[in-house]
């Protein structure tokens, strides 16, 4: 076993975007930071990767809609090549056999394809959703409140939330509390009548979670989405040029500028614990590195159960960590196409946007049903992007890349994914064929990543991109586990900074930033 001479102020485990953000933020505070990445390159599930000769695609996350403004500001990502203009916003298109419906601008500032009465209903609902999401928004960039021993700053923070609630006015505040834990389906039925619009919202609310639109609390998923913003507008979305890897490149540049040492291909085997304190890591190569603070930006369960080991923590904590639900229910499809597909009734601008197959809430619910019993959806729902239309460099000339997040694909498929994957791919392609006739004949190569594949390739246990179901019982003060939601752990000097921590997944950088702020505040 070799031991490197250098002693670090902080070692960050995991070079996903949260690890990079945490490392960069810590380095900017003057700390000497080492970032260890297991893979050959940083970026995790936000890399841009080649999946067929000449075809490149964003690995798992393919739309940028919630990179936190504080991350942009703290790391000065604009100076490192990440700039978002309003003209980059792409629409959401609800595909339907009866013709599409389009949400333009930031989550449907303008709605087209719907009746005038539906448009005005949507205007009211959209305003309400954004108003309510805004109440929750401040929580994203803060530690969850600590129930025992609230600090003055935390108290002030909660006070602001109380004020925000009060500012809603009495009726609105009552309604906010009424709908907070509702299912999305019932809320949509209260206010809308167009199945296409309702289907799209039902899909968005349940995207990335093991919930159907009628599952209690499913509305929270929509709030989570709308609490995010890009380019200063809540609910907006862009397809980054160069894929998500370009966002990673900017964060990486900021980290390196701040002095972070990045070592790829260095998987960590163990966090060294001495007398209840994390003091360094041992790599799988047998190298020992010591640091004052160890920050784990990988999965919380992997961190505690594998790197630290159950022997170094208390039984109750092990129980909680083992009980984090994190079985993914979404698959990722990459298609290399001979030419851009034509989705029926969708215009050129729509093809550059997010195309959603979720024709009605019932359809989403029916797609969800089999997953409860370990079966994949026979008629899956999905969100599709065609990244090479925004950035032609991602595909050979004339060809096209299709990237889709497809639900529902339960991690623990009863028949096993070896047998299930070809059938699931067939079901997906059949759905695509319905909305883009002729697309099947142009498929040059198809890559389908089931949760099993995502788990193996991106080291995401359960293949869950939130690193833990993002549901009410695993949010805020209960994320990743109750009692330890503030990025610190029972082990002194060990912090969690990944999507498994509050507020959760998506390319936000918020867990990484919040964790770094916590460490700085604790002088760790």
């Amino acid at each position, binding site marked *: 076993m070799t031991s490197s001479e250098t002693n670090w102020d902080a070692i960050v485990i995991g070079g996903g975007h949260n690890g990079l953000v945490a490392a960069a933020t810590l380095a900017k505070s003057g700390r000497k930071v080492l970032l260890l990445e297991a893979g050959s390159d940083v970026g995790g599930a936000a890399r841009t990767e080649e999946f067929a000769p000449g075809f490149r695609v964003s690995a798992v996350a393919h739309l940028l809609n919630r990179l936190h403004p504080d991350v942009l500001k703290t790391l000065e990502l604009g100076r490192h090549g990440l700039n978002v203009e309003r003209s980059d916003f792409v629409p959401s298109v609800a595909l339907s056999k009866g013709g599409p419906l389009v949400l333009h601008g930031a989550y449907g500032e303008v709605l087209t394809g719907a009746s005038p009465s539906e448009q005005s209903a949507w205007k009211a609902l959209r305003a309400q959703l954004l108003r309510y999401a805004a109440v929750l928004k401040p929580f994203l960039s803060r530690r969850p409140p600590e129930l025992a021993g609230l600090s003055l700053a935390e108290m002030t923070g909660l006070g602001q939330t109380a004020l925000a609630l009060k500012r809603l006015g009495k009726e609105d505040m009552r309604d906010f509390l009424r709908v907070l834990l509702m299912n999305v389906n019932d809320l949509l039925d209260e206010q809308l009548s167009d199945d296409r619009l309702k289907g799209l919202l039902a899909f968005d609310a349940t995207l990335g979670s093991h919930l159907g639109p009628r599952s209690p609390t499913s509305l929270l998923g929509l709030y989570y989405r709308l609490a995010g913003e890009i380019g200063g507008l809540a609910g907006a979305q862009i397809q980054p040029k160069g894929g998500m890897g370009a966002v990673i490149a900017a964060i990486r540049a900021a980290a390196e500028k701040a002095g972070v040492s990045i070592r790829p291909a260095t998987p960590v085997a163990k966090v060294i614990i001495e007398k*209840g304190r994390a003091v360094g890591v041992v790599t799988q190569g047998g190298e020992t590195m010591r640091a004052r603070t160890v920050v784990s930006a990988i999965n919380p369960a992997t961190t505690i*159960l594998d790197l630290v080991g*159950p*022997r170094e923590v*208390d*039984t*109750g904590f*092990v*129980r909680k960590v083992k009980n984090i639900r994190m079985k993914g229910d979404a698959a990722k499809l990459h298609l290399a196409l001979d030419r851009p597909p034509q989705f029926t009734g969708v215009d050129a601008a729509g093809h550059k946007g997010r195309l959603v197959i979720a024709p009605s809430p019932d359809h989403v619910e029916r797609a969800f049903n089999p997953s409860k019993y370990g079966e994949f959806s026979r008629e899956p729902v999905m969100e599709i992007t065609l990244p090479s239309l925004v950035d032609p460099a991602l595909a050979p000339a004339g060809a096209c890349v299709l990237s889709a997040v497809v639900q529902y694909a339960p991690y623990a498929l009863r028949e096993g994914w070896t047998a299930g994957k070809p059938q699931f791919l067939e079901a997906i392609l059949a759905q695509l064929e319905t909305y883009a006739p002729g697309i099947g004949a142009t498929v040059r190569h198809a890559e389908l990543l089931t949760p099993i594949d995502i788990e193996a390739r991106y080291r995401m246990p359960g293949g869950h991109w939130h690193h833990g179901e993002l549901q009410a019982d695993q949010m805020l003060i209960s994320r990743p586990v109750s009692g330890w939601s503030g990025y610190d752990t029972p082990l002194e000097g060990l912090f969690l900074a990944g999507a498994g921590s509050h507020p959760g997944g998506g390319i936000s950088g918020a867990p990484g930033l919040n964790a770094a702020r916590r460490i700085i505040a604790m002088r760790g």
Partner: protein
Amino acid sequence: MAQATRKKPFVTEADTAVEARTIAQSHFRTLRLGTPFQPRIDALGLKQDWYNWAGYRAPHSLWDEELEYFAIRSQAALFDISPMTKYRIEGPDAEAYLDRITLRDVTRLEPGRVHYTAWCDDEGFVLDDGTLFRLSPTRFRLCSQERHLPWLLDSGIGYEVSVEEETEAVAGLALQGPTSFAVLRDAGFAGVERLKVFDLAEFAHDDATVTISRTGFTGDLGYELFVPADKALSLWDRLMAAGELRGIRAIGYTALNRARLEAGLIIANADFATAEHAIRTDRLRMPDEIGLGFMVDPQKGHFNGRRAILEARAKKKLRHVLVGLEIEGNIPAEHAIVYYRRSQEVGLVSAAMWSPMAKRNIAIASLQRPYGDTIVDDFWVEIYAMRELQYQKLMKRAKVVQRPFIKLDRRTANPPADF
């Protein structure tokens, strides 16, 4: 007892099925389980004074509380400890596993030894106390008041260890009192004289093995014997026969409870509320708050509750303390309120008695720090003495004293004395 309450003129197939189901569901007719010694105890239980010990029918007293107590102190007393929860813990990681669960350093517990220990939850609150028997380098028996199987199993994540409850399979007897050694010797357990306090060894009995340890809950010379349930009665008979001339007597819990109080020993859910039973958050207790702080070993490897306990010590967050009290007069102060300067409520007595051995009025009490910790003077207890259907309220002075209240040389004497 199951009894037929209706006459059946003829039997159909359906009736047979119902009958079978009734029998299968008749467990509730047994209100309390019997232990493997029950036939002998029932025969001696003249007072029919039973209580519920972890679901078993256990005697408060068999024939006379006073005489049963004096059997412990002057003769040999036989007490059935079969209802005590027992776990068999075995495997290459058993030592490391128990070291992580319990407070004391298990790596220093040698095979053939027993120690008294306790274990805590994540918050450092005591889940239970009990005795840990090291039967071999890789095999242990953990005895406790409460049941802990889910906790013990979940604690095994990451260890090569098996945990099995053996409460029913293993019968236990405590043989306590000055003549207890002589009884064992006369019963033919050759080599039992070599057992020092907290030693254990295995002996042959009735084609099986009995594990005898020099341990007990009385502060007296005494032993505990563990035997497979089907050999329980022959062991009982063997001891009773050998002890006849040594005054051996079966006893109930009331007598034992007095002896343990004189020895200054505490009982879970009597002198403190265990963490999983306490409903009110201020009833939870850390080891330091119930006199078990000596078990905490910050130098050993990680153990459950370590972080919380050390933090509470460092930040002075300990709120209670368990003390021994000597109270003036001779009226037991059972569950009396403890006052500072006769007026300020500072705690409660959890066990009290007039001690025939110490010739003192003794008690165990839980006080709110700093009382009992840095302030140890001017305590009073309020005793309600019932005198012919009228309470007489007594305010008696109480002095904090060391536990145990009695110390008997014969408990630790080597070789054990032959009375």
